[in-house]
């Protein structure tokens, strides 16, 4: 018997795994039929999830945590048993700002760029027209990664620069209209700004945190328990979709699927650039290869590390100006559900980490991690400033960010 699941999403490249699981028949192999509901704002994706229009959703990881903690609306418990991908976002600056920062058409060194930005930001602040950055949502990894980078370079968010919310499909327009000077957004929206000649890509979020958690597959915790076998089937189907997605032989066909009007509704060429980690950084230039710009499969990329949820919690209290609360930290950590991921893949050959938590940013050279039945190579996962996040010392970490 076929089980039908409805999945909410925003038109972004990293909605790819459930879409490809359906399109290539991996979902059908698990007895699942997926249908998709596309929206243009995260608030709508979330409403549909909370009120049963969808069973699961492509969701910003910090938003799943914020919803569970009741930030901005009554608390509702969400569960994320699968990470849809790591990174895949970029910082795009207006041409004027690119000139002011002396950008040369390549990805900049984050520390070096931050130093130059600090000077420009101070000038603009003193002139009474502070630099304004657009992020896709208050509770997004884009917001947290951007702020982490800025603060680490001595640029104080909300004081030296403004940070506002701009929905992804409008970010290129906002750059063009001068509403913002820079944006941090996922693909294909950076590339669309470049193609229109309204901005230049200067930094990938993978340069800020080499293995930074991005979207998750989120469900209401109650719903997850109701349809648990189907969710586990979906996890297996999405792992197979990930394997297909990262194989260069499939890039063309997958870009063509994602380009379709019912999915990303964006030019095939731009989607191909994102999928292959080869972005055009400046209008008219050739694409440049930045390995692991998107990270959808290797190193058990989809495993929901509890330590990732805890890092997001540390940023939520940092930027919402909250005091650390152990109960809230525990609830935030519980959003990520490695137990469900493990149970889904137990009988497969897929490598599954034995632990649920790790020190984030601790690996600067490749290292072998334990998995059930073997080991797995984990590459560099560092933060740009060389600091690491030890979830066992969460309180200390939060205090150090003040």
């Amino acid at each position: 018997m076929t089980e039908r699941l409805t999945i909410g999403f925003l038109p972004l490249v990293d909605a790819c795994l459930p879409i490809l699981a359906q399109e290539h028949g991996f979902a059908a192999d698990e007895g699942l039929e997926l249908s998709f509901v596309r929206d243009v704002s995260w608030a709508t994706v979330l409403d549909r999830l909370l009120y049963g229009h969808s069973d699961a959703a492509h969701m910003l990881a910090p938003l799943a945590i914020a919803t569970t903690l009741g930030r901005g609306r009554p608390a509702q418990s969400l569960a994320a048993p699968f990470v849809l991908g790591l990174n895949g976002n970029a910082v795009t600056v207006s041409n004027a700002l690119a000139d002011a920062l002396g950008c040369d058409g390549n990805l900049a060194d984050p520390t070096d760029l931050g130093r130059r930005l600090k000077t420009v930001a101070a000038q603009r602040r003193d002139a009474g027209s502070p630099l304004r950055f657009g992020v896709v949502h208050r509770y997004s990894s884009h917001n947290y990664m951007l702020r982490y980078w800025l603060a680490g370079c001595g640029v104080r968010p909300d004081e030296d620069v403004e940070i506002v919310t701009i929905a992804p499909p409008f970010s290129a327009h906002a750059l063009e209209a001068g509403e913002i000077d820079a944006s941090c957004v996922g693909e294909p929206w950076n590339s669309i700004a470049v193609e229109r000649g309204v901005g230049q890509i200067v930094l990938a979020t993978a340069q800020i945190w080499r293995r930074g958690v991005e979207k998750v597959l989120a469900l209401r915790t109650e719903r997850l328990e109701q349809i648990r076998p189907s969710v586990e089937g979906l996890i297996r189907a999405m792992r197979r979709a990930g394997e297909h997605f990262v194989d260069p032989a499939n890039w063309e066909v997958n870009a063509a699927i994602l380009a379709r009007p019912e999915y990303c509704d964006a030019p095939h060429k731009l989607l191909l650039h994102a999928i292959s980690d080869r972005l055009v950084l400046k209008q008219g230039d050739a694409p440049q290869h930045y390995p692991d710009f998107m990270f959808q499969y290797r190193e058990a990329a989809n495993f929901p590390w509890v330590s990732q949820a805890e890092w997001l919690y540390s940023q939520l209290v940092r930027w919402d100006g909250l005091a650390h609360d152990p109960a809230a930290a525990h609830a935030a950590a519980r959003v990520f559900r490695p137990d469900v991921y493990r149970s889904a893949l137990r009988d497969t050959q897929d490598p599954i980490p034995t632990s649920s938590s790790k020190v984030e940013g601790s690996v600067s050279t490749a290292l072998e991690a334990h998995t059930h039945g073997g080991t797995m190579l984990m590459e560099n996962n560092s933060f740009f400033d060389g600091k690491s996040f030890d979830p066992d010392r969460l309180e200390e970490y939060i205090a150090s960010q003040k």
Partner: protein
Amino acid sequence: MRIAIVDESASRASIIEEGLATLDGCEIFTLTSRTGLVAQIAQIAPDVIFMDLGNPSRDVLEEYFAVSRALDHPIAMFVDQSDDDQIAASIDAGVSTYVVDGLSAHRIAPLLKMTIQRFHAFARLQHELAEAHGKLAERDTIDKAKRILMKTKNIGEPAAYAELRKKAMSTNRRIVDIAEAVVTAHELMGDGQ
């Protein structure tokens, strides 16, 4: 009570406005443009905002609400958790509702009820409109088929219509389906001007 209606569909916004205007003590502001939305909302300082569920500006507005919590005008999503059924009805109808924190549920209920009704009414109208368009298109097809029959068989209009009707009845299909077949066949046989 100050109410803002945010909807990129101007016709739906006016239908909601018309409904709410029948309630006492409502001052209504209708916003249909995306540009400058937050600034306008800040100026209006509404007690209640009704917004179409899929509106692309929702994340931007929610960000503003979150920031405005520091001000003396906090806005929260919905009234409180106890109204879950009402919220679900609102989401199903395609309305998202934002209410100033502390405004009592019984003051909101009639507004929300009216808005939901009006959303449903608008959806019904659209459905009827689509149906009417469909009917018009059907009539066109039947007229075309009649003209083809009149010309090729050299008969009058009543006779042409009678032929379509007879065929429809004998094959247990709709007249428009027969007409469509006639038109398609005619196009295939050439001479399909």
